[in-house]
């Protein structure tokens, strides 16, 4: 018989800068029961979008849900509204949307990987990753005019065109970044410390991931073939050489390697966009009011983002619903903890890359 103990994790914790609270019941440092609370940063954005703000302005409010995947929220909402208005964006706008979104994915994944490395006690790698993340941030700043809140997409296209000077700078910075990415892949594959810490820890079998509806890199790390980009026809992903990354192992290492390989595929798509950017308008005027119902599935960096909008021909929408990827990953996380070692908890949570300001909204 061991000692029963209740250990709280969060809502403020050194390992995780997000306000989430877990209460673990442990027996000899093995977890027997978990309780989760995710509602610490509820801001009522959905309600505000249904009562106060017009549908065109909502496109600038929903990016404020989350800092890291702000452009995903923006674009998912815009595409849902464009479905309602029966409008198709010009081809140049579609390519520019892919460009901004994939750049955003790179910076988000680098951030997540840096945090996982920090949880493994590899501070040097954190510094390297954050230094090279700065290159993507500068690219995004040049393209959209801001580091975090891009406000790039709008109903009818995108807000800014890609000028030749910006393109030149982007190419220079991305080339530098790509070399570094290959080096990082080498480290993640072959480093002794990282392999020792991550392999075989926090394993999600494929059946469990399917049963509890995991999303994003977590699902792909356990061998579930799910990616909204593969079945998405509003943006030209297949033209640009999209490929799904799937690892079968299901541990922390596999989740990280999914992120790492996705970075390289995002990089390839960005090069394809820059090389084959079609000419034409980047924005067109859209007329009409949203009437009816529409949904949009969008692959955010953390998994599948879901938007549901309903309008009745007025300025203000009658319903707007957001389902975020972290929310769908919480049941798997809870199931995964039972039977795990308490010492692995920070590494497991961070390998899920949770975004609580998305989840609580």
């Amino acid at each position: 018989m061991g000692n029963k103990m209740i250990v709280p994790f969060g809502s403020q914790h050194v390992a995780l800068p997000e306000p989430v609270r877990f209460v673990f019941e442990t027996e000899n440092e093995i977890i027997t029961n978990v309780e989760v609370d995710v509602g610490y940063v509820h801001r009522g954005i959905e309600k505000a979008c249904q009562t106060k703000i017009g549908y065109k302005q909502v496109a600038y409010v929903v990016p404020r849900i989350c800092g890291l995947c702000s452009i995903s929220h923006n674009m998912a909402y815009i595409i849902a509204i464009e479905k309602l208005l029966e409008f198709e964006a010009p081809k140049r706008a579609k390519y520019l949307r892919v460009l901004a979104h994939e750049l955003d994915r790179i910076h988000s994944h680098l951030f997540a990987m840096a945090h996982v490395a920090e949880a493994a006690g590899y501070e040097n790698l954190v510094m390297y990753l954050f230094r090279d993340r700065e290159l993507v941030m500068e690219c995004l700043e040049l393209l959209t005019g801001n580091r975090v809140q891009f406000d790039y997409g709008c109903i009818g296209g995108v807000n800014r065109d890609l000028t030749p000077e910006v393109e030149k700078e982007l190419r220079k910075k991305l080339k530098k970044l790509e070399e570094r990415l290959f080096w990082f892949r080498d480290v993640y594959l072959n480093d002794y410390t990282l392999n020792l810490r991550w392999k075989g820890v926090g394993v999600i079998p494929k059946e469990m991931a399917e049963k509890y509806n995991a999303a994003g890199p977590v699902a792909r790390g356990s061998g579930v073939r799910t990616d909204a980009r593969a079945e998405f026809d509003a943006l030209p992903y297949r033209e640009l050489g999209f490929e799904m990354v799937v690892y079968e192992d299901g541990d922390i290492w596999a989740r990280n390697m999914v992120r790492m390989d996705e970075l390289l595929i995002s990089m390839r798509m960005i090069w394809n966009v820059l090389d084959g950017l079609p000419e034409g308008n980047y924005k067109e005027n859209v007329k009409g009011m949203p009437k009816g119902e529409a949904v949009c599935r969008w692959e955010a960096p953390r998994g599948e983002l879901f938007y549901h909008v309903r309008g009745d021909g007025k300025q203000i929408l009658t319903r707007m619903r957001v389902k975020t990827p972290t929310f769908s990953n919480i049941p798997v996380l809870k199931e995964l903890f039972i039977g795990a070692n308490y010492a692995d908890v920070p590494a497991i949570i961070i390998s899920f890359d949770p975004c609580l300001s998305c989840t609580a909204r």
Partner: protein
Amino acid sequence: MLKMFIESLKNLFSEPATLPGFGTEPPKGYRGLIVYNKEKCIFCTKCELVCPAGAIRFIYPEDGSRNLEYKYNPYLCIYCGECVRECPKEGALIQTDKMPEPATKEDNPNETWFEIEKLAEESKKKWQLALAKKRQEALKKAQQAKQGKKEDNQDKKN
């Protein structure tokens, strides 16, 4: 080992990755403060309607004329640039690449802005009333003038 040695030697002589202290300038095309030009403005108040944050407010004059006062809160603004895109007159609103200076306690940005919001709403109501009165008077005058004309015509016919 040799690789590491070369890397450390390189780092010894290369520039630091972190930026040296203050004074970093935003790049070209940065979305910064919004500047207003009263001479070009036509007072259509489209920017006020379209602003998601409500950072632009107009204070209406009491006499019902179209000489509005522009108020802007840089600490509420989200710098999306929607007002600039919506503006029908070119040059009335411009997005610059400057950042706002941080507000201090003496500036008291919240309280002053709440007062402005209140004033804007009240003045708009008063202005609408004044405008309605003006229109009614104008209508009356027009009707009287019509009647007068009719009478004149009748007189002429007679």
